[in-house]
């Protein structure tokens, strides 16, 4: 191994150096900015996470799985996952091996930014020595993998459905510049290394390229132009990166570290939210996920465009999209980076609604009822359930059949749980309701709260402090009653399909219990989209501005997905879904409690 170029420098590294130095300075300033805007206690929590071995291990695992191997995208679509992982992992390995080579064979060049990247230009080696053969083989191998990935990426631009994506995002100008640079980087690297392979050595990929071109060029004059082109492509990519979607490459690492430290979105554009915004890779998986996109005109309301407008500080558009969103959370669970766009949208709504007046002075006059006996189980139906009294009647029948000694907390109507206020961005107002409700529940002396409304359940789980009280949705409660044999149901050959309400499924991760119950009643059939991919019923209180017609279209789409296997009945577990579906569905719709109460033995 010997240095071919004395001094280890050539002018063609200048474009690369400009790009990389600009990028590093930009990233450093960005990091400081984000840390500055994170609230003090969150910053402390972040620094503490660096000394907590448990969190460090989780950080490392997440970074390897998500940033390098892209396990989440593999789970979504194997080809899409391979495309992304081959580019990310392949490129990472090229960089790592480049540095290893420098450290092993030309240690005097350690610490140089460009030397490992242009290693093959500066160093001459024969490929029949072991170190040449081994590392050159690895380099060519990973280059081949990256080239394969780039080929797939080009194909995806033409036919994205081949990789499981019906729609992809429209790239903006900076995205295009960075994209075309990225596409040209690796073919140019192959050419550049190919042309020098006759002098510096090569392996199974670069040697044949060298021989092929040597035959009809017959000289070495192409070496400089290709190395220059390679360096310019790299430099331009780094220059365009901060303004393009590829900013997700460095930011995702920061996002993972911050998320594992337990940080939450507090402001819509600054601090943790900024890390989330720049982690968005604009991949467009949320385009297919968003239930609003049954209508083409609504595509612009997808999370990916919301984040793009946030990056551009386009307040009018940001507010419009934030208010439109149904908050069903499907884009969040499917997002390969895990950008919690719903939280950003809620924070954004807060910038407008938090200032609005409210007057909850009446809360002071509400007192916990004086009870003679202390029931262990408390039933809280929730506002929405009071509009579907059949659910309440059914639950009462089930409680009686099970011989449960229960207390119906809001038999005469109760306070709102606070979740609709949270979703409207009015966090402070919601906190008042949460505080009052918590007081009432703690005073009741119950051990379990059974809820009929998943909207309530979610906020109870996330925001309420109810030490010693177990929270159950009625699906979980009924499931446990059946399992313990406290009630028995008659199974017949009716076929059912179960609709996962957004707040119960994606919100509280309850997927199996309701299915167990339905399976005990009859035959459980599948929907075309279910569990975490289930489609919002369209009735969500999450959206502030979506009108009735647009909602009705979503409802129809959701019913279509549910009835692909022609079930006799649609079963849901949310009063809001029940009401929304009942207005539109040709197939009868029931709440799970109604279906159980009907067949109770």
């Amino acid at each position: 191994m010997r240095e071919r170029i004395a001094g280890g420098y050539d002018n063609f590294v200048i474009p690369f150096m400009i790009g990389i130095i600009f990028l590093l300075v930009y990233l450093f300033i960005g990091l400081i900015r984000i840390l500055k805007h994170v609230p003090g206690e969150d910053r402390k929590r972040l620094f503490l996470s660096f000394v907590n071995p448990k969190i460090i291990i989780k950080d490392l695992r997440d970074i390897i799985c998500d940033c390098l191997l892209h396990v989440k995208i593999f789970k979504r679509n194997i080809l899409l996952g391979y495309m992304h992982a081959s580019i990310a992992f392949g490129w990472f390995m090229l960089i790592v091996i480049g540095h290893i080579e420098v450290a092993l064979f030309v240690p005097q060049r350690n610490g140089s930014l460009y030397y490992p990247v242009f290693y093959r230009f500066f160093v001459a080696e024969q490929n029949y020595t072991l170190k040449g053969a081994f590392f050159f083989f690895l380099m060519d191998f990973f280059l081949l993998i990256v080239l394969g990935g780039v080929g797939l990426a080009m194909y995806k631009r033409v036919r994205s459905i081949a990789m499981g994506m019906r729609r992809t995002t429209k790239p903006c100008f900076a995205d295009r510049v960075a994209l075309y640079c990225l596409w040209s980087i690796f073919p140019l690297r192959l050419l550049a290394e190919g042309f020098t392979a006759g002098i510096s050595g090569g392996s199974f990929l670069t040697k044949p390229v060298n021989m092929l071109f040597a035959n009809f060029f017959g000289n070495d004059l192409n070496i400089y132009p290709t190395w220059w082109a390679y360096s310019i492509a790299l430099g331009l990519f780094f220059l365009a990166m901060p303004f393009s979607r590829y900013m997700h490459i460095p930011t995702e690492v920061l996002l993972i570290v911050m998320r594992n430290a337990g940080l939450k979105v507090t402001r819509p554009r600054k601090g943790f939210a900024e890390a989330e915004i720049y982690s968005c890779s604009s991949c467009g998986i949320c385009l297919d996920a968003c239930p609003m996109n049954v209508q083409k005109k609504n595509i612009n309301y997808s999370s990916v465009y919301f984040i793009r407008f946030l990056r551009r500080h386009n307040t009018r558009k940001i507010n419009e999209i934030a208010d439109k969103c149904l908050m069903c959370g499907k884009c969040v669970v499917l997002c390969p980076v895990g950008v919690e766009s719903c939280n950003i949208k809620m924070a954004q709504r807060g910038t407008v609604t938090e200032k609005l007046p409210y007057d909850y002075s009446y809360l002071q006059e509400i007192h916990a009822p004086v009870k003679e006996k202390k029931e262990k189980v408390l039933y809280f139906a929730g506002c929405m359930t009071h509009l579907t009294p059949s659910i309440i009647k059914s639950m009462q029948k089930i409680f009686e059949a099970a011989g449960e000694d229960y207390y119906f907390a809001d038999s005469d109507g109760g306070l709102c749980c606070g979740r609709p206020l949270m979703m409207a961005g009015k966090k402070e107002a919601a906190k008042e309701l949460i505080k009052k409700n918590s007081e009432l529940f703690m005073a009741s002396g119950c051990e379990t709260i059974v809820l009929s409304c998943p909207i309530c359940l979610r906020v109870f789980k996330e925001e309420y402090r109810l030490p010693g009280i177990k929270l159950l949705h009625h699906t979980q409660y009924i499931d446990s009653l059946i399992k313990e044999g406290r009630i028995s149901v008659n199974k017949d050959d009716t076929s059912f399909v179960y609709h996962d309400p957004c707040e119960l499924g994606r919100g509280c991760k309850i997927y199996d219990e309701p299915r167990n119950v339905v399976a005990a009643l009859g035959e459980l059939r599948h929907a075309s989209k279910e569990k975490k991919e289930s489609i919002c019923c369209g009735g969500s209180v999450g959206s502030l501005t979506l009108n009735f017609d647009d909602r009705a279209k979503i409802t129809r789409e959701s019913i279509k997905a549910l009835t692909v296997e022609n079930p006799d009945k649609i079963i849901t577990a949310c009063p809001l879904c029940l009401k929304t579906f009942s207005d539109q569905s040709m197939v009868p719709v029931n709440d799970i409690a109604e279906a159980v109460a009907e067949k109770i033995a």
Partner: protein
Amino acid sequence: MDFGYSLSPSSRIDLDLFDRNRFNTLAEIEPDVLKCMACGSCTATCTAGKYAKNSLRSAILYLQNGQDKQALEYLKPCMLCGKCFMVCPRGINTRHLILSILKIYNNAK
């Protein structure tokens, strides 16, 4: 002039204070407000209505009469639970209407 003989409080409107512009702004961003037929379904189902005077129906009527301050008092206890939205026979997006009224009339006289 109120001599104290009437059964219900005076609903006299001071035309000097009647600011039509605000209502027009509201109707522009929420055309739904014009659809309300004052059926009272929203008020009948209202969760907050059990504890305080909260009525979207009354608020809209007050706004049409130019009594902005009274209108706001009828909306401040709202918990945005969304029941009114589910029962409205005219399909009015009540939650956003309430937020818009609060926003536009926030510093009402």
